[in-house]
């Protein structure tokens, strides 16, 4: 099959964040009139690549050419001016503004220097019609729309710019099945109109349905490009595997048969349409992993356990007794003894302007208070002990938390919760964006906590961590437990296959247990 000359070509582009190499001299060519699917597991570099194309991130090196000419997109506006439109996973809409305002946000038609509201509305309506979302009224405030409708507005907004290249990053993940069909039909139409489309998705059947070409990324590098439909699912999984195992994990103890009820048990937990009938049990001394692609309900599951979600159905049991967790405050109470290391340490974990010491003691502040007044010497001693125990590198306990490196900030968040002496530790991707050394310290710490009798539920987007740390892994897909892997079954292949909701790879993985690392 002849592939037409590429419209956008990326050659040898690299990008590092701190010490982490997100893109390692990656190549990609996108041609007009074709849909190019980009695949890869979490952290393979897909999103960074999109951000380079969109002008959001400046690459450290490499070459980007468009229609044969060198281009440099230093800002998102420059990329847009060149005809590149992006639809990102994180929505870029302003919730307080109307749909029409959002669609025409930086190119509203003017009359005498003022926004021409009528023409703006006409254009917005045209864009919505082109996106096939005529049911959305242009005057609705975006915040009143459900997520699936917002995603359609996002698509209309991209189309209103008349792009030559359209990049979609997980654009269908929030959509209903009917909308997905409409979006796929729309994408086919756009392709026939001669647009070049880059399509990132984890949904294999959508990729099979729509794409013309596929490129697989691994470790920040493109490892294979092939015409769609020429490789089996099994071959695709093989190509996606192959991350190096750089981390040293502490040895796992032999499974212990505990007596009595498990420390934490869930039965049929559901919440809106994000969590569906989840059952889980974690014994004292056990590390239970949550796997799967990002955004399949893992975060919601941890928040539900920690009392941050309303309207849960199902049962949560702690040490055999059914409990109701109404707020994080109740969750951390001695009766339940839970701790949650949140996903985003900067907004949910730390008070950045406050000192390291104040952050560390904050969750356990009651322990150091007499009649409501803080016993500063007792607090200070406990803080010093925690800083030594976790070897947090800080000039002084009085320095603001904002002044620490990412790894040390994460240690502060973990230390803050260890000070409450938790019996159930929930972790939401705790090693994201931190250095390898600190990661190893965290692995060792988790195992030590488990050995000391805590039950640990650990969500990670890094499959290597799940394999290296966990006694058991629950793989979530679309809010459901897709598969539970125990002990030797926890292999990268089994994890990826069940994360992609493929049965072929999983079956193979069961035939060959154990994995050379």
């Amino acid at each position: 099959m002849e592939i037409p000359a590429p419209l956008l070509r990326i050659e040898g582009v690299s990008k590092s964040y701190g010490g982490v190499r997100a893109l390692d001299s990656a190549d990609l060519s996108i041609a007009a009139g074709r849909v190019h699917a980009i695949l890869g597991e979490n952290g393979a570099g897909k999103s960074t690549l999109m951000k380079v194309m969109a002008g959001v991130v400046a690459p450290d090196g490499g070459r980007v050419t468009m229609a044969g000419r060198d281009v440099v997109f230093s800002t998102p506006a420059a990329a847009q001016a060149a005809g590149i439109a992006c639809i990102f996973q994180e929505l870029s809409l302003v919730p307080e503004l109307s749909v029409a305002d959002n669609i025409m946000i930086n190119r509203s038609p003017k009359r005498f220097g003022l926004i021409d509201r009528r023409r703006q509305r006409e254009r917005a309506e045209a864009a919505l019609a082109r996106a096939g979302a005529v049911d959305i009224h242009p005057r609705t405030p975006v915040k009143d729309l459900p997520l699936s409708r917002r995603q359609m507005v996002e698509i209309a907004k991209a189309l209103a710019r008349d792009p030559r290249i359209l990049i979609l990053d997980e654009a269908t993940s929030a959509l209903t099945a009917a909308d997905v069909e409409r979006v796929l039909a729309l994408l086919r139409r756009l392709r026939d109109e001669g647009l070049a489309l880059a399509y990132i998705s984890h949904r294999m059947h959508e990729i099979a349905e729509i794409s013309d070409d596929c490129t697989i990324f691994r470790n920040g590098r493109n490892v294979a490009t092939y015409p769609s439909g020429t490789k089996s699912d099994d071959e695709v999984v093989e190509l996606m595997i192959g991350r190096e195992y750089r981390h040293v994990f502490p040895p796992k103890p032999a499974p212990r048969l505990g007596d009595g009820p498990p420390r934490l048990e869930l039965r049929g937990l559901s919440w809106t349409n994000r969590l569906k009938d989840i059952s889980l049990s974690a014994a004292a001394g056990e590390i239970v992993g949550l796997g799967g692609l990002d955004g399949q309900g893992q975060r919601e599951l941890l928040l539900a356990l920690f009392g941050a979600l309303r309207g849960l159905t199902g049962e949560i049991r702690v040490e055999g007794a059914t409990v109701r967790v109404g707020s994080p405050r109740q969750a951390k109470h001695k009766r339940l003894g839970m701790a949650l290391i949140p996903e985003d340490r900067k907004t949910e974990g730390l008070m950045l302007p406050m000192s390291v010491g104040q952050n560390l003691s904050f969750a356990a502040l009651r322990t150091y208070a007499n009649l409501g007044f803080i016993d500063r010497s007792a607090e200070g001693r406990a803080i010093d002990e925690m800083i030594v125990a976790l070897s947090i590198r800080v000039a002084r306990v009085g320095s603001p938390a904002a002044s620490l490196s990412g790894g040390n900030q994460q240690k502060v968040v973990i230390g803050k919760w260890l000070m409450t002496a938790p019996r159930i530790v929930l972790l939401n991707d705790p090693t994201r964006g931190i250095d390898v050394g600190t990661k190893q310290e965290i692995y060792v710490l988790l195992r030590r906590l488990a050995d000391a009798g805590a039950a640990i539920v650990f969500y990670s987007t890094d499959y290597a961590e799940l394999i290296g740390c966990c006694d058991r892994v629950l793989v979530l897909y679309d809010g459901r437990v897709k598969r539970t892997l125990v002990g030797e079954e926890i292999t990268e292949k089994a994890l990826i296959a069940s994360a992609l909701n493929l049965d072929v790879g999983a079956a193979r993985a069961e035939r060959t247990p154990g994995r050379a690392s």
Partner: protein
Amino acid sequence: MREWRFWLAENRSTLAAFAIFVAMFWIYVGNHPAGFTANVVQTAANKGVLLALVAMAQTMVVITAGIDLSVGMTFVLCNCLGSYLLAGDAWHTGVGLLLVLAAGAACGAVNGLLVIFGRLQPIVATIATGAIYFGLALWMRPDPGAADDFNSDFADFFTSKLAGGIPASLVSLAAVALVVWVPFSRSAIGRTAYAVGSSELSAYMSGAPIRAAKFLVYTLAGLLAGIGGVFLTFLTYSGEASSASGGTYTLYSIAAVVLGGVSLFGGSGSAIGAIFGALAFRTIGDLLFVFDIEPLWQPLFQGVVLLASVSIGATRLIGVRNRLDLFG
């Protein structure tokens, strides 16, 4: 040596407010015809304490990243109440004082409940309640005045000079700071108030009592504004429902708080800084008097000095390399 420098860095904004105040007051006294005498200090202190108390009230709320636009009206309401209740013999006056302070605290508590349970934005809730408090004050005192048996001896005591020429009002201010601010800043709930201002989400996810902390700051703000109102009654021997003075004190309290190094984004600063901010701001106004400038120029001059002092605090932004930090 190192410890000393860290202490300096942590208290930089409070010290800066103190330095601005000292500089202003130095210029003021240096050019005052009477010079540095106990009387000059007493007059300045009596005037300054009013704004200092209202600024302390504002600080409480600002620490949680809120703002209280009703402090000035609570101040005026308690002034009017005081003109009725600070009367009669010592026992009656004492009970009256407690009632006035309770009314101030109640005004604050209402704000707190509206913000916490009504989920109103602090600025909106307090604009509304401020109007209500002023309405009550006006209803109570349509015309300025005081009770016939107003206890002026009691009032005089708080505006007099103590042994050694120290103004009683300053001592009272220090006592309020010691009794209200110091315990607050050292309590678990006070720490929670700072945490709410730094990152309410983090505070919530830490299982901190954020509702109790918010309720406390608004209530304390009402109480402190009430103490300010009582002092106004002491100074004027009367109550007056003056819309102008309520509005002015509200706005000046925000200026004083900023001058005192309290971040309007919440989470940092101290009421001690705000006290010096208030005293400095008052002195700016008095400077015009000693330089014999027409009073017409006072607002303009105050504005310029305020801008200049706040700009000093913004100089750290010049060194910011990552533009995203500007929004943090």
